[in-house]
């Protein structure tokens, strides 16, 4: 076999755990059979990917237990092999896989917890950047305020979930110590971000979430604030800015008229 054929056949054999496509090329020698030798590669490859998912989605794993998690991962991996060498970024499709995975249906919050963990991972791995300095706002004339556009920090991720995924995550991080969180407390709106080295997770009000969401999608302050005020007519815009300058949520201003 030519090298490209051999590598394709070998890859198929590992992913599918069926040696037939490559067996004729393997001469192990000694007392361990070619199929047994090939199985080492299947176990190593799938084991490495399982470990990577297990690290990235550790709360998800703790919620369902190792056995359930492994069965789920075993179904996920063959259809979702990593497209790049960086294992830290493996598993983007895992939350939506869980949402469709029939045995996980009795746990409607599981996919949300996995999604939270993925966003946490993205925030953790995001490129370094620096926060917008409050002086930069001070230099802007009030007439320009409506047209201000804010870029959020590279690591900022917003999430709306029907379950208290942040509480569930903290509960798992503490290895189940303390009271199990009540999952029927209603929707949560979250900001995950890494201002410097540590990822923080923060609950937002619905209006605050909407303001950040519309800003993050490239809308002006005027448009974004309109959505927040529509949700909550008493929303305090000054307090919002004071808070998010302190948190260093913004990276820069751009495209000002």
């Amino acid at each position, binding site marked *: 076999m030519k090298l*490209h054929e051999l590598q394709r056949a070998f890859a198929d054999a590992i*992913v599918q755990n069926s040696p037939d496509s490559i067996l004729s090329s393997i001469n192990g*020698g000694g007392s361990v*059979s070619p199929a*047994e030798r090939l199985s080492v590669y299947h176990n190593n490859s799938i084991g490495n990917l399982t470990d990577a998912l297990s690290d990235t989605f550790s709360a998800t794993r703790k919620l369902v237990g190792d056995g359930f998690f492994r069965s789920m991962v075993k179904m996920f991996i063959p259809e979702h092999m990593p497209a790049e060498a*960086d294992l830290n970024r493996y598993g983007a499709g895992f939350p939506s896989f869980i949402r469709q995975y029939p045995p996980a249906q009795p746990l409607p919050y599981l996919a949300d917890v996995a999604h939270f963990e993925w966003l946490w991972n993205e925030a953790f791995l995001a490129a370094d950047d620096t926060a917008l300095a409050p002086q930069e706002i001070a230099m802007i004339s009030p007439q320009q305020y409506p047209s201000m556009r804010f870029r959020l920090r590279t690591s900022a991720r917003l999430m709306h979930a029907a379950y208290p995924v942040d509480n569930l995550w903290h509960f798992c991080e503490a290895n189940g110590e303390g009271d199990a969180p009540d999952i029927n407390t209603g929707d949560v709106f979250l900001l995950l971000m890494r201002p410097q080295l540590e990822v923080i997770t923060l609950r937002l009000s619905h209006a605050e979430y909407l303001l950040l969401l519309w800003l993050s999608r490239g809308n002006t302050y005027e448009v974004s604030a309109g959505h927040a005020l529509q949700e909550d007519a008493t929303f305090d815009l000054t307090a919002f800015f004071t808070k998010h300058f302190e948190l260093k949520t913004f990276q820069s201003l751009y495209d000002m008229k």
Partner: protein
Amino acid sequence: MQPAQKDLTGIGLRSAHYKALLDEQPAIGWPEIGWPEIGWLEIHPENYFCGGVHTHYLGKARERYPVSFHAVGLSLGSSEPVSRNHLQKLKALADRFEPVRISDHASWSASGNAHFNDLLPLPYNQESIETLCRNITITQETLGRTILLENPSTYLGFSESTMGEPEFLVEIARRSGCGLLLDINNIYVQAHNHGSNAYDYLNSIPRGLVEEIHLAGHMQRQFSHGTLLIDTHNQPVCDGVWDLYRAALHRFGGVPTLIEWDKDIPALDVLAGEAKKAETILIQEQHYEAA
């Protein structure tokens, strides 16, 4: 004891040790308490293609130690060319942290769009030599420097092979200009798994090609009619590998030596203890050669 010896022993920098090694007053590097003089730290560059904690600690590590890059994601043995994107990230990291050495493996890990994050075996023949040389050349031209190629642990052979592994590696080094990173544990594992002789392997590698040595632990796995050694990097280095290491130093001289421990990572002092053993042998062997 020659003063140059103190720079030869290295350990892998792993996130579990960031704080102990780089934040707290580092006990490591204090020979008075029986620890080795750590000459350099090795990282997997793929773990630093991002911002945040990892890159922060790599910066701290670099302030105190020389750093080497041991890549696992170039897939130099793939029939497809090396990923330009991956290479650009590696280059950016190398420009920033100025590693003393950059290495990857004589294996492949990507086919089509699938990455295996494992070191998959190659048939040892002319086509594989040409493939590796092409990918090493692309890599070296992009980085503007030579790299080192490491011998892998393998668990099977191919009927497409036409030569032995040492001959294969030496030919690639000659053609591409790369150096060799000799993993002594992998040679030991190969000898067991393929019924060959590890000392013959060492003697097939010309002096002068070997620029770095790796030492690691492995495990034995039982199959229905025999055993294979699996390169697990989760154990202390075994006695047989220490013996082989001694022979390698005798042949190749004082080569920078790294203890690799990637899974079930122990406390830093256990890792330092392994490095101390390597340092002791380095000193003894140099002494032997000088005599």
